[in-house]
């Protein structure tokens, strides 16, 4: 482990973005402690020692490069193309963090300009980004936006000199091994195939009709809650699969079905087995799961 006195330098650059990852990061409960572990040379919002114009001169590298937003080679920051900025800082840095789905896979802004924009190492699920050759350095923290705790986890590991193991898409396994479905309060309804009859109710699962991608999405939103308190499914919104390379899909509030069976089944489950299981599960009539859960109204 590195000595406590060593402070890695950090630069946070932005590509084509909405700044959502920056704002998400500000929600990290231990933000002051985390920032104290780094020497922040540049950040688009937080106090830092250099200006964007200084950074754009490309004179001094950094240990950690955080990149937010999709990569558009021709886009300029302070008059310098992203192509040059990213190439320069990624060369020097020991770690490159792609913060959010745009930086990881292209995300929303790849969908807006597919011919130009990509993620750092991937375009969608294809290893096809400008940092492909340095893919070993790039940690993909997908999510739209990135969960602050995921970014905190990656940066703290770097500060502590601990290695981070990643999956086939460059995402830390500790964070993306789970499905968004894991920890969802609606799991019991999922098991017994009880659909949410309509939005605006805490009862029922959103998988069968309402477009929930929880069982198909690698993310720990329901284990590490958003803002410390909630998640989309807890408030009855389907998971839109924002951590996956195909985000944003189409018809996000609907589930594609085939004879009322979801066309896609949970990751790792054979479709045949799933169909059989559904038939059996549906044959149970569980009174508790057909009643409302609260007496507030």
């Amino acid at each position, binding site marked *: 482990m590195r000595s406590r006195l060593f402070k890695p330098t950090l630069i946070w650059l932005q590509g084509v973005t909405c700044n959502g990852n920056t704002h998400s990061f500000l929600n990290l409960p231990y933000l002051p402690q985390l920032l104290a572990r780094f020497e922040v040379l540049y950040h688009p919002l937080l106090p830092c020692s250099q200006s964007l114009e200084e950074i754009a001169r490309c004179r001094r590298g950094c240990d950690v490069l955080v990149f937010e937003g999709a990569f558009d080679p021709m886009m*300029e920051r302070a008059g310098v193309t992203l192509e040059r900025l990213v190439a320069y800082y990624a060369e020097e840095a020991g770690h490159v963090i792609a913060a959010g789905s745009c930086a990881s896979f292209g995300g929303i802004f790849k969908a807006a300009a597919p011919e130009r924009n990509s993620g750092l190492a991937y375009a969608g699920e294809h290893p096809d980004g400008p940092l492909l050759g340095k893919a070993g350095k790039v940690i993909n923290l997908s999510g739209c936006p990135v969960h602050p705790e995921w970014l905190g986890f990656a940066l703290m590991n770097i500060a502590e000199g601990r290695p981070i193991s990643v999956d086939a898409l460059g995402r830390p396994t500790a964070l993306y091994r789970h499905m968004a479905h894991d920890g969802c309060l609606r799991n019991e309804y999922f098991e017994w195939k009880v659909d949410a009859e309509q939005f605006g109710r805490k009862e029922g699962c959103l998988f069968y009709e309402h477009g929930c991608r929880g069982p198909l999405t690698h993310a720990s939103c329901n284990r590490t809650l958003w803002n410390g308190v909630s998640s989309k499914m807890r408030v009855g*919104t389907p998971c839109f699969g924002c951590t996956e390379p195909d985000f944003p899909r189409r018809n996000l509030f609907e589930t594609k079905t085939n004879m009322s069976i979801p066309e896609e089944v949970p990751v790792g489950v054979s479709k045949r087995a799933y169909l059989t299981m559904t038939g059996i599960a549906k044959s149970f009539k569980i009174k508790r799961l057909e009643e409302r859960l609260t007496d507030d109204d």
Partner: protein
Amino acid sequence: MMTRALIEHIEGEASLYFDTRGEKITWAEIAFPHFRGMERMLEGRKATDALVITPRVCGICGHAHLMATVRAIEAAYAQAGYPVVLTRKARSIRELTLVLEMIQNHFKWLYLVILPELEKLGVGGLSPAPLKGAYAAAQATKILALFAGQWPHSSYMIPGGVTCDPTHLERIQAAGLLDELIGFFEKETAGVGLDALLSFASCREFNPLQSDLGRLEKGLIATEMHKKGMAYDRFVVLGEHGFTVRARLKHTRPMKADPCLVSTEPAVCRDETSHARNVRYGKHFYEVGPLARSISADTALIKNMHRRYKDSVYTRVMARAYETAVLLQHAKTLLAELELSEPSYVPPVPLERISATGEGIVEAPRGPLMHRMRLERGIVAEYKIITPTQWNLGSSVMSDPAPAQKAMVGAADIAEATFIFRSFDVCSVCTTH
């Protein structure tokens, strides 16, 4: 154009081009260089997909975009002859989360932007603590997330209501967190109780305050910001909410406002391609945002400031900071009056039946946000977004400057002009989308 200044820490960047005589600013043009194509990517998609995509226009006011989208879809339903039923509960929850987003915005702007920038103008003793802003903002978004699932980028408002189904457990948790946030605001930001602050009727009442707000007020006077940065002294508020009133104002005199008269055209900057647009009401530029909202809502303190110092930087900045208090109080009321027994959602007819146009208008942190869409059988045929920053931060010709341009002319030097620019709470991503 003589001098170019790159402005950052504004949700992206902007370039300012100044003409000067000596140090003094005689003319300024504004360019926002980044464009992302959000409107186009919605075309051909089902309208409900816009509920997921438009919040991604902006990381700091995505909720306002979500609400503008849902209101626009609901307006299209109404135009098609299928009015959507919204319960009081759904309305209050939507408004509550919107208000919380505004609160987090104002805290960030005050602590991460305005206090540090004011210190750069040479004001001593401000002791800016940017992370205070992050802390308070995170508290606000935590309350928001109890109803909306997460912040940023939630999509819990849908045509017919909201997806959440809160119980008294969430209501009580939210009330507890809100009290904590109000406590922080009273102790750190205001230096006086919320009720007392809300009863202020004159700027003199800031004199004894040993707090961030008190120091801000003194700092603005010390830098003579009460004599600088005047724009048109014409305001417009278009969103309909419980914390303000839709109106068009000349000085403080209110008149009716009709959103149909809003128009846009490309912004002008001779030295750089800008993707911003100019927005006008009728033929004229108007200022939008918290100052406009406070005057329209007849807020005694802000009207007092306006009487003394017109639409100066002082009044504009204080109005935004003070609105935090107004919104905290409003959030408290909304939460206390929340009627949980009503349904959260009343399903409307299938979207496929809707071929119509709809407009959704919301007061976002920086002013009115308008989404206009045309639907063909529930599919988006056209989508247009007009953001608050486009009203304030457009860039036009010398004979007809946009509000921020007008406000910057006459500034003593570039440092002062950029502070005036920031007094509008600049958001680059929203300006261009």
